[in-house]
């Protein structure tokens, strides 16, 4: 039993996790591709045309997964940042740093596809719908986290400061969502809302689910890729990095590395 516990913590250092991440990545890329193809197939070729929204509704097959991922990634990012703060480990902080840009990209895609969905449906590129507005604020929260970490030179301080910000953000997200919802319902003249999704046919639901899984696998793959690069950057001075196969300079001293 105690063997299992020791094994987990063995991977808690950048040194031991770097190769593990490298091995996991291809699997996540593969799963992302499989789910993506399946989801897109269903989304375009199986799911029927919507009665009210025509073909335009098909955007939900990326809009909804991107939104879900943007929120999920924020939670996971805050979790890892919190663990890094509480246990004073480097790897957890690096993971939070690795997740942030991907989460921000998901938030951006959610906003972009939301606008492209809204324009044909409701006539304007932007609707102050509760969910879209909350998504915009989430995007700002991501940008703030990334900007704060970028501005602080010392990586450990950046990790910890980011953690505080992410945790404060996580606590605030429900409050922000609630207040925006409140604001939205009070000010609505007509009840146009992107939250009124078309009544879901089974196939539509399946398409969304598969695409969500695809996005999730993609995010994992990309986050691990970024994590490995961050590890290389932040652990550059260590022996194990300098002895990595990828780093070993060619034996011929006169050969200038590319």
């Amino acid at each position, binding site marked *: 039993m105690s063997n299992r516990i020791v094994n987990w913590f063995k991977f808690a250092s950048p040194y031991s996790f770097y190769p593990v991440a490298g091995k996991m990545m291809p699997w996540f890329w593969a799963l992302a591709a499989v789910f993506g193809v399946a989801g897109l197939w269903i989304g375009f070729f199986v799911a029927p045309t919507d009665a009210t929204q025509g073909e335009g509704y098909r955007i939900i097959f990326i809009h909804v997964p991107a939104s879900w991922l943007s929120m999920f990634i924020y939670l996971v990012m805050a979790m890892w940042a919190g663990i890094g703060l509480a246990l004073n480990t480097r790897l957890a902080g690096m993971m939070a740093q690795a997740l942030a840009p991907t989460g921000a990209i998901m938030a951006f895609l959610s906003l972009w596809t939301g606008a492209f969905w809204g324009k044909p449906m409701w006539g304007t590129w932007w609707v102050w719908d509760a969910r879209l507005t909350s998504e915009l604020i989430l995007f700002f929260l991501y940008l703030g986290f990334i*900007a704060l970490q970028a*501005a602080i030179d010392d990586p450990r301080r950046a990790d910890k400061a980011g953690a505080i910000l992410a945790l*404060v953000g996580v606590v605030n997200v429900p409050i*922000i969502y609630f207040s925006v919802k409140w604001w939205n319902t009070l000010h609505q003249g007509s009840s146009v809302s992107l939250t009124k999704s078309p009544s879901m046919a089974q196939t539509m639901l399946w398409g969304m689910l598969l695409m969500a899984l695809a996005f999730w696998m993609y995010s994992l793959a990309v986050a691990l890729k970024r994590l490995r690069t961050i590890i290389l950057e932040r652990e550059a001075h260590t022996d194990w990095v300098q002895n990595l196969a990828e780093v070993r300079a060619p034996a011929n001293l006169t050969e200038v590395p590319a």
Partner: protein
Amino acid sequence: MLAVMRRDLLLAMRRKTEVLTALFFFIIVTSLFPLGIGPESALLRKIAPGVLWVGALLATMLGLQRMFASDHADGTLEQMVLSPTPLFFLVAGKNAAHWLVSGLPLVVLAPLLGVQFDLDPESLGVLTLGLLLGTPVLSLVGAIGAALTLGVRGGGVLLSLLVLPLYIPTLIFGAGAVQAHTSGLGAGGHLSLLAALLAMALFFAPWATTAALRISLE
């Protein structure tokens, strides 16, 4: 805690210009909106709560760095962290002083500026009460940002980026209260939510600020 508060107040009084600059900023910015939008009173009355609240937000942000920056620069802050008094109380004292000097004047000025927007006395009352409840929240939450960005380059602008999204609920409930009142729905709900925000901020924000200070100073 009172000692810290008194000290900060004294320092602020000696450096009046910083405080007054933020207040003048509030006055000027809120005056800009009618100039930009037009003098039609019905429209002004509609935008007044939003404009005054956003002005208050921005004016508060201008003064946030003051909370820790000067003490950090001359080493007093480190002394405070090392002192036997729990940092929590020192932070609370600083927050209180900051609000008294930055937030409270906004609360006092707001009704006067609200007259520029042709708001009726009752709405002005709701606005003032809202600001009274909300400006402490702005100080408390802003302190977290100020502590996080202590000594960081690009601090001021970065601080705005960090803190403004967190200010949004206060803005919504504060401005919403006045709008609810003018539309006859009653401001009670909004004001209670503001009070709830204040209670939560009073309990949680100083902890986050203390943690952030320790991180920035180690």
